[in-house]
């Protein structure tokens, strides 16, 4: 695989000014996305995974939200373009052009009064300056490519005539319509049944390989990620807790939060009922600005230092970075899962 970087995110900070106070949603997130790779961003609700993605492409509703710091560079095709410095117009060209999106709820992402065909044609005409005729041909090919039977008829259908899985296929067709470098998928299978989820995951894998597109797959589900991603980034409290190649993360998790998460999920292939490891406490309250490790309240391995400083990401193995003092001071917290 090529190691060209297509996206660089550095120290991204996003806050929301609400009636109850300032919500510190994203507190300095950095990562790179390589050409054609699938990076999973895993976290629980409020971990900042969705806001991170929205911040990249200027979709944070403002007010109340504001990207307050950091740099985001789109680095495909040898250019290095600053996304955060772009005008709304330039950003519109990027969205749907270089970066495609698939959201959790396809029904609220599709326009209910337009036919499926019109919605895809619109994207193509806007971004690729195609004629209506060209756009129509390409749309029919796209519908077939995402596995919708009878594209001619689907072209003329409205979203309500589709099931959840078929709508998600349409969203994927729109996302890849302009041959983007990057597709950002936010919980794309969460609302789907397990057999349909498997269909959509397979479709993603096929398209990724056919089109060579890089994918950011945002999810709370460590199961889906295992069979799909090449690298996994675990978020907690608006920060990156751990980032590692997929095998490494599951076999050799280093952050106590990752270890806790992996211990908390039941596995279908386990014969005996082991007690699930539970992480005590609740996810952090983002209204409280944190000057220390955001996981300190819930961590079994907490030290004095964890309450005084924010741990930075440190490389512990090839491509494996962890933000935890345990690793620096006392070696690994423990072997494998609890």
């Amino acid at each position, binding site marked *: 695989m090529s190691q060209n970087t297509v996206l660089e995110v550095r120290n991204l900070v996003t806050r929301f000014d609400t009636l109850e106070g300032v919500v510190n949603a994203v507190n300095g997130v950095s990562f790179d996305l390589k050409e054609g790779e699938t990076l999973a961003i895993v976290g*629980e609700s409020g971990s900042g995974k969705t806001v991170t993605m929205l911040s990249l492409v200027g979709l944070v509703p403002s007010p109340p939200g504001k990207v307050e710091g950091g740099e985001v560079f789109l680095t495909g095709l040898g250019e290095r373009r600053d996304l955060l410095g772009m005008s709304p117009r330039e950003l519109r060209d990027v969205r749907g052009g270089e970066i495609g999106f698939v959201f959790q709820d396809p029904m609220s992402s599709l326009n209910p009064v337009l036919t499926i065909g019109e919605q895809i044609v619109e994207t193509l005409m806007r971004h690729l300056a195609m004629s209506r005729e060209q756009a129509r041909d390409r749309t029919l090919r796209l519908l077939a490519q995402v596995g919708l039977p009878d594209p001619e008829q689907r072209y003329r259908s409205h979203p309500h005539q589709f099931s959840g899985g078929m709508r998600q296929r349409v969203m994927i067709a729109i996302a890849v319509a302009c041959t983007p470098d990057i597709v950002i998928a936010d919980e794309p299978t969460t609302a789907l049944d397990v057999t349909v989820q498997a269909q959509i995951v397979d479709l993603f894998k096929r398209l990724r390989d056919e089109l060579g597109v890089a994918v950011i797959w945002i999810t*709370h589900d460590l199961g889906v990620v295992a069979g799909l991603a090449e690298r996994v980034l675990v978020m907690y409290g608006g920060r990156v807790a751990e980032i590692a190649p997929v095998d490494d993360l*599951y076999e050799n998790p280093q952050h106590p939060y990752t270890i*806790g*998460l992996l211990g908390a999920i039941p596995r*279908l292939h386990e014969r005996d009922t082991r*007690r699930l490891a539970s*992480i005590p406490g609740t*996810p952090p309250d983002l209204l409280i600005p944190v000057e220390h490790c955001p996981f300190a309240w819930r961590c079994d391995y907490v030290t004095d230092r964890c309450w005084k400083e924010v741990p930075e990401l440190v490389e512990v193995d090839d491509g494996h970075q962890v933000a935890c003092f345990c690793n620096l001071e006392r070696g690994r917290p423990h072997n494998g899962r609890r």
Partner: protein
Amino acid sequence: MVGDEVVVRVKDLKKYFPARAGLLGRQRGPVKAVDGVSFDIRRGETLGLVGESGCGKTTTGRSILHLVRPTSGEVMLEGQTLGNLDPEGLRRLRPKMQMIFQDPYASLNPRHSVGKIIGEPLVIHGVTGGRELAARVSELLELVGMDPAYARRFPHEFSGGQRQRIGIARALSLNPSFIVCDEPVSSLDVSIQAQVVNLMQDLQQQLGVAYLFIAHDLSMVKHISHRIAVMYLGRIVELTDRNTLFEDPLHPYTQSLGSAVPIPDPKLERRRQRFILEGEPPSPVNPPSGCVFHPRCPLSVDVCTTRVPELREVRPGHYVACHLVDEKGSSKIGTEPVPVPTTQ
């Protein structure tokens, strides 16, 4: 520990809803949400009920408790037939059968204190009152791992996981022998799910309560259940113990379900054989003829399109509704069962 005594017996339970369609709202035949479901649950046992959305799992749970009146069929709770009871008789039986709901935000009254929410069943059924009531509420809060002082607080002050604990305390207040748990953890974060599931298992050990655990997350259902029933379009297609269901599934639907569930282990995922069903479950308004699964079944033969397969006990304790299964086994759809780990 699972006892021998049957707490709940469900026999040929059916729940049909009238369906209207078109501009004039003409009657268009009933929606057979639950179409002949039968099973037993023993004391201290958890029966998992799984299936995709719209398969009738929630309606099954609600019909068992007679929160909706079943169209036909029989439910017996500790030997008493619910269908024969008048509303008052049913009300008097309610303490024995309770429910835990999916949404911990919608199922607690925001205007009532936690103490009132948990104590209300005790007051309504005249079990206890006054100072004794407060003591029992404290005891229940401790039982679900919460501070008794929380009795004076209100639901909005709590997180989803804590609210679910309050819902569990309420369900347990009258010492029920049976609780229907309808997706009790699916709205919670992963780390909180584990807390609630562990609590439910501990309480079962302590109190011997039987659960009907309804969920769509197969890994979680397998984790908590002793036996599992798989539903498809209003019917049970397979029912057996938790390990057999995934290691030797007989129904083609169960086989494909097992192969579709992702396993959080990248190496295993890469070498796993999968069989992914095409299409999506059909609408119960207009179900297919014969075996309702036949349009998606890779093995279907002529008889499947015309005759409805009965749920039969093909091996001791292993029930399956498929024409292609006999005592020797079944055809496999080309996927290996869920791999059994060699280590651990």
